């Protein structure tokens, strides 16, 4: 199977879909001639021209709203949000129009739209450039929210997103653009709402999404050396949400640790913990552990940033608490 980077997988998904469907266009800041700040759209303008790879002014509310209007009028735009941190400028358009217009029009208006870009931190961009917005966007009915972590998934989920007739919030693991992985040749999709069991185990379930999944795989190695077989679940999709895979795993392991870079209060991890107590209460042998970002704006200095995000050690400790081995 061919090996490609996360970035290349993303680009190939968009290029293939643009070739297949002329109504697919991309809009964003510096995505055309410059190739994109993160080079995700590099050279797509050479292949598809400026009418389909559309450079925009720095005006997130304006061009995101315009993409929503394009979608309402019959096209299938992809918006590159240079980083999701800038999407706060566009929240009114995303929440008040994209997420709701189908409902308040009684089902008349559809918004087949993908908004994509890097999400999350870990590269010392400090307070205003470091957010994990899964729970924020996941809160609004009308949006679908996904967060792929492997090159395989980012390609299959991007193709799925472009073909989906709803507005999709596509949160990329920005720190992982250069990571490599196997990606099948030819067209394939990864359906939304289906989590991935990244590693099977019987003793404790570790749950995350985005780049924390890779951290969990390392933690599972550490725990294995201790004789603990951890199961690792990659949520992949925040809305819709795969309840079944989580519940089945917890019924097997009786213990769960949920890990997220975002803040603890009102977070995805809170929802996972609530789900487990609702559907697997009698199967639990220990309280669900949550490992989250510190309750501070993201710091700049390396040591502070590291301290503010979940560490492998924190996750190991949480797993041991769940196993009563702490």
């Amino acid at each position, binding site marked *: 199977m061919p090996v490609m980077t996360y970035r290349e997988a993303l680009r190939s998904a968009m290029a293939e879909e643009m070739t297949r469907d002329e109504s697919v*266009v991309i809009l964003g800041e510096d995505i055309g001639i410059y190739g994109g700040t993160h080079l995700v759209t590099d050279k797509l303008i050479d292949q598809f021209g400026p*009418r389909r790879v559309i450079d*925009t*002014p720095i*005006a997130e*509310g*304006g*061009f*995101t*709203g*315009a*993409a*929503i*209007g*394009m*979608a*309402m*009028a*019959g*096209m299938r*735009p992809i918006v590159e949000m240079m980083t999701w941190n800038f999407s706060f400028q566009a929240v*009114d*358009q995303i929440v*008040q*129009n994209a997420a709701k*217009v*189908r*409902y*308040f*029009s*009684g*089902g*008349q*208006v*559809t918004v087949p739209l993908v908004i994509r870009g890097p999400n999350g931190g870990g590269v010392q961009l400090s307070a205003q450039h470091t957010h994990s917005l899964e729970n924020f966007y996941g809160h609004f*009915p*009308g949006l*679908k929210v996904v967060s792929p972590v492997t090159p395989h998934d980012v390609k299959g989920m991007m193709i799925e997103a472009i073909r*989906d*007739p*709803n507005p999709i919030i596509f949160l990329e693991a920005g720190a992982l653009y250069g990571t490599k992985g196997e990606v099948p040749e030819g067209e394939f999709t990864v359906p939304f*709402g289906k989590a991935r069991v990244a590693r099977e185990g019987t003793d404790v379930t570790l749950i995350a999404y985005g780049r924390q999944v890779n951290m969990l795989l390392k933690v599972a190695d550490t725990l294995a050396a201790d004789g603990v077989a951890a199961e690792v679940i990659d949520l992949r999709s925040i809305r*819709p949400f795969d309840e079944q895979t989580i519940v089945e795993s917890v019924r097997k392991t009786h213990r769960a640790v949920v890990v997220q870079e975002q803040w603890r209060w009102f977070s995805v991890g809170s929802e996972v913990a609530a789900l487990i107590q609702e559907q697997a209460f009698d199967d639990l042998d220990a309280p669900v552990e949550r490992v989250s970002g510190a309750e501070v704006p993201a710091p700049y200095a390396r040591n502070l940033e590291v301290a503010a995000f979940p560490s492998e050690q924190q996750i190991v400790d949480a797993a041991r608490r769940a196993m009563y081995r702490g």
Partner: protein
Amino acid sequence: MSATDTMASAALADLDGDKLRPMYERMVQIRVFEELAGKNFAAGLVPGFVHLYAGEEAIAVGVCSHLTDKDFITSTHRGHGHCIAKGVDIPGMVAELMGKSTGVCKGKGGSMHIADVDKGMLGANGIVGGGFPLACGAALTAKTLKTGGVAVCFFGDGASNQGTFHEGLNLAAIWKLPVVFVCENNGYAEATPVHYHCSATDIANRAGGYEIPGIVVDGLDLFAVYEAAGEAIARARRGEGPTLLEAKTYRFYGHFEGDQVTYRTSEELARYRDRDPIQAVRTFMVARGVAAAEELDAIDAGVAHLLDESWEAAKAAAFPATEETLTDVYVRY
């Protein structure tokens, strides 16, 4: 110069009786629709917020008379007039105000969210300034797909201070989009007068910052609006880009029903009532022999009948089934 003289001087060769009669009828439809909406809101038949368009009819009708179903409009919280002028079904609108299952949005949107995609009506918008980017996008679709369509973005004086105004006009200008921004300057952003909230004497002056045409017209004068909108829309269709058209107007009622309207005088209202845009068109048509008074009376009676029937039908219609609460969120989930 009286309103009638102004209109006479602006009257266009292509506005013969056959064109004027339906425009007059649309204006009357809007007026009667709004008067009954206000009355029935007071009677408790309409929930939520209702913002009446009465007084501004010449703008919606003067602009939308140049549009077909392939053209798009975005509208505002004060959107009933735009909907009617764009051809949205009136009984369906009345039912929507009442939140009935027979409403154009199945009772799920209400006054501020009336939409009809088949008519190119992309939706009223309850957020001031929400429509600028959407209209740009609809225009970009029309341009990309070469449909020949244009988009019209209706907005009020208050919306001209939102960031979306700037972002939308700049996008439209740099991409030469087939879009016309129609500012309905009725003098008040809710309760705040335009001379306080806006730095520009004419909002159309702001077009200069985008190097696009900025035109001011008398929004109480159907012919002036029709002529200026016709030029702006034709320009957009020719691929020459956007126009900012400011129509100075006045709303005959408050910001919303229930507004005590403490911020303007009864003398001011009376001055504008004397210049009623519908009465002016009627006077012109009769004076010029375009239509007999009896003919217009018959139109008025027909409109009254249509609206009465619409309200009776809406009152008799069912509310949406409770199961409808959970439908229409996603195409598929």
